[in-house]
């Protein structure tokens, strides 16, 4: 029964990751599913659903279409919708039912592209992996398809991996843009909050990519390989740590060097942060630089091999619970719904994560970008 969660929820699925990543980029996103993934996405995982329009559609796959392998219906419907809506591009992503019938996304996307004349990106989601994998695949495919070569913008930064699934609508992404601007950087592309298709086209014009979640890492690696753009992984939380991130951005621009801004003490930790890797690493570093707190991370989501150090990768509820019981940290910083696996005598500092608890605590997600974090954590 490993990986069965009995008291905590699971993270948003890969399908939601694709939809969230591409929500504002002007594409038509078709989820091949009966409808379940659509309602999960719109009601739980997408805070922009009622306020901002986007071309996210469901294919309304029926049992008979699935059993009979009636791919033509999806292809015709998608081509017809694209003719009406004239999207910048089309994305075809999947869910558990087509996964079980072995639906071939690559072949269907190629047919849709040929018939519609509009670029179609196949996503290999199946509704069983995390939003990180979906968003990561979507950002990578979109950047591969649309980022244009051009003269680099002086002090230009591309912010990669920004979705409400990690930052909610707390204003953090806007604060990152403001913080960059105040330090003489220019946000040439942000993928993808308060963004448009132009942000995709401009992604390769940056001098450096700022990766703010694991979802943006694959696209950053691609931009580095194809366009020679180095990347820095870190979210500028707190004051002193934000200065470290700024310094790394400048070093990256000057020396063309890629790095993670993960600077913590080697001392024993008394605090555990549970969450998305880039964000959690950044928060640990901010706790150290700004408040002198030593913290380690539990990564329940995909992470980059070789980055963990003393941090731990564990996604099974029973493993996390057993670790916290044994380790007994003074404090855990995590989404409020983790309280059920935190020992009673351990203090829980609630840091809502939209991809974990959805709208439950969406209003309480703090904006910690370039802020004094003392009050929040002490």
């Amino acid at each position, binding site marked *: 029964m490993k990986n069965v969660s009995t008291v905590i929820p699971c993270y948003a699925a890969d399908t939601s990751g694709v939809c969230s990543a591409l929500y504002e980029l002007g594409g038509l996103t078709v989820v091949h599913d009966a409808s379940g993934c659509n309602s999960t996405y719109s009601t739980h995982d997408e805070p922009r659903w009622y306020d901002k329009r986007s071309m996210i559609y469901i294919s309304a796959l029926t049992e008979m279409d699935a059993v009979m*392998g009636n791919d033509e219906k999806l292809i015709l419907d998608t081509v017809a919708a694209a003719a009406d809506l004239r999207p910048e591009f089309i994305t075809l992503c999947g869910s558990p039912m087509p996964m*079980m*019938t*072995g*639906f*071939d996304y*690559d*072949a269907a996307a*190629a*047919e849709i592209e040929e018939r519609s004349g509009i670029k179609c990106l196949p996503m290999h989601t199946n509704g069983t992996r995390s939003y990180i994998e979906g968003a990561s695949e979507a950002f990578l495919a979109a950047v591969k398809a649309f980022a244009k070569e051009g003269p680099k913008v002086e002090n230009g930064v591309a912010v990669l991996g920004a979705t409400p699934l990690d930052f909610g609508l707390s204003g953090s992404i806007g604060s990152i843009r403001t913080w960059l601007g105040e330090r003489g950087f220019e946000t040439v592309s942000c993928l993808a909050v308060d963004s448009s298709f132009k942000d995709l086209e401009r992604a390769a014009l940056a001098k450096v990519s700022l990766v703010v979640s694991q979802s943006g890492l694959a696209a950053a690696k691609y931009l580095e390989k194809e366009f020679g753009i180095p990347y820095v992984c870190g979210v500028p939380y707190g004051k002193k740590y934000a200065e470290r991130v700024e310094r790394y951005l400048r070093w990256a621009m000057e020396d063309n060097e890629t790095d993670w801004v993960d600077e913590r003490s080697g001392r024993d930790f008394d605090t555990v942060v549970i969450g998305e890797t880039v964000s959690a690493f950044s928060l640990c570093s901010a706790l150290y630089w700004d408040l002198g707190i030593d913290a380690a991370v539990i990564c329940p989501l995909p992470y980059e091999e070789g980055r963990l150090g003393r941090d731990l990768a564990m996604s099974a509820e029973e493993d996390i619970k057993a670790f916290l019981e044994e380790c007994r940290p003074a404090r855990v910083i995590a989404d409020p719904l983790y309280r059920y696996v935190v020992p009673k005598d351990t203090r829980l500092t609630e840091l809502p994560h939209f991809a974990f608890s959805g709208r439950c605590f969406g209003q309480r997600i703090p904006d910690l970008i370039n802020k004094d974090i003392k009050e929040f954590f002490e």
Partner: protein
Amino acid sequence: MIKLAIYGKGGIGKSTCTANLAAAFATLGKRVIQIGCDPKADSTINILGGTPVMPVMDHMREHDEEPKTIEEISRSGFGGILCIETGGPTPGLGCAGRGIITTFSLLEELELFEKFKPDVVLYDVLGDVVCGGFAAPIREGYADKVLIVTSGEKMALYAANNISKAVKNFEDRSYAKVRGMILNRRSVENEEEKVRAFAESAGLDIVADIPRSADIIKYEDMGKTVIEGDPQCETSQRFFELARLLIREEEGR
């Protein structure tokens, strides 16, 4: 890289032909992977001296998690041929076709081709193209060419016709194309004429003519292919001819 999927009616000799073709390629100095795509998981047994490899689905069932390395789900056999079997769900339960897709995704994640760097990959597929799972070996990135094994028996030709039509249905997609048929003789009256007539009507080549031979059964009883047991015999020579033909075609591409 030569990437072949072998289809044909159940019991027609697909695994025998696949294993012997694999052994022929290996003897000619090629690095070969043979992937059995049948829940019976007996495609590679005669490459492995009669001792089967642990099928991928059995590994998942036993360990309740995906294998971390290729070594856990493969074994090297005659001529260094890397043998993999997809296996399948518990008979009567689950979905065998889905098992094939799961296995292929896993092999991709484990970077099988990048690590082993094969010259030849052979997919030995269960019977007809009955669903999406059994079409997986002919999707883009897997096999480029399909070989259909048939005899002169009516039902074998009927199945060959179905397989040929199924593959043609995917013409709009970048799937594998039928390269031709392997005539695996069963001592049927006027066998060659019957198969040639069908091949002509279907627009297919007969790329190999394998004689009915006791040698095949003799060496299979010993856990070997004919190529391993007696590379000089006529049956072996036919497989060598087919392997050389396919190598020439690949080199000419």
